[in-house]
């Protein structure tokens, strides 16, 4: 196992790591990081051209559809 270099910058906890941590152990700075990440995500989304934004087909549970549904008045 190699020792971490003292020159390595302290890593900022990822959103995933913060979400996986017991919230009672989160500092105000950690909560602010979570908030900032949500804001950054919003900005990234706003900067994307409309066409490239993820869209999702409406979920249809086919086995639950019947002929009656199709001809429902």
């Amino acid at each position, binding site marked *: 196992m190699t020792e971490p270099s003292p020159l390595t910058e302290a890593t900022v906890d990822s959103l995933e790591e913060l979400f996986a941590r*017991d919230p009672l152990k989160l500092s105000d700075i950690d909560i602010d990081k979570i908030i900032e990440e949500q804001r950054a995500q919003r900005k990234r989304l706003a900067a994307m051209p409309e066409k490239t934004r993820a869209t999702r087909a409406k979920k249809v549970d086919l086995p639950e559809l019947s002929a009656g*549904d199709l001809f429902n008045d």
Partner: protein
Amino acid sequence: MTEPNSSFSRQFPTVQIAWDSTSLGAYKKCPRFYELSIIQGWQTRAQSVDLRFGILYHGATERYDHARAQGQDHQTALRTAIRWTLEQTWEVALGRAWASGDNNKNRGTLVRTLVWYLDQFGENDPFETVILANGKPAVELSFRMDLDYKSHLTGEQFILCGHLDRLANFQQKTYIVDKKTTRHTLSTDYFDQFSPDNQFSLYPFAGRIVYKVPIAGIVCDAAQVAVTFSRFERQQIPRSDEQLDEWHRELGFWLTAAQLNARTGHWPQNDKACFRCHFRSVCSKPPSVREQWLQAGFVKRTWDPLQARGDI
């Protein structure tokens, strides 16, 4: 019923005395749906996610409003709301976060929706929350009012009850603001579903009586919760006094009909209301095997309008 439900008569346990929009709406939709979802308390696991998500969304925004009313700035109040949300969605016994199993409604999309919503409306909301005489913001207000209808079976007076999300002033008028979270696109069709609609008539009807202030209307404050984004839209849902009076007159019919069902012990299917109904998979089976299907695919909870909070 799963456990004693304070909203039902003690004399006649299937006669509901205290009605909220969820239980009344369930009965209006279909007596069988009401029997299964309210009297017996069955719900699907997906409904359970929607309910929990809705309760947490309301709870977090309520905490934000209280923090602001106490003088906290936006960022501090937001942090309070997010911290509360993270704590509420932490399964202490399991040592891990709430896993909803739902792509749209989960812990991550809840936090995202709250931050985006409160950043958009927290500081610069044209709707200003009414501050009550006790200095507290008019959010998550429980109401309970006696109706002028009595049970023919027990003589008890019916009660209308519920929780208003928020009272807010906008351009010198007071509105009821109702928050909704949905997976669906916030189109005209989405808002059209509220006219006519039981909940969006019940709230302004009760609001004008309980709060003794002229309620100008009800505003649907909707949040679309998609997998990768959240979006918000508000729309006023108009109701005239004439419409509210009509709703109240017809309420008498529904309460009478529900007592007839309780007296006969029979809650018939409205088989024109089955499309997209959660209980379709059960009601489409022969009566003798329905209980097994309920046990296999549904979970039980008690819906007590005098206790419950959260709509979906």
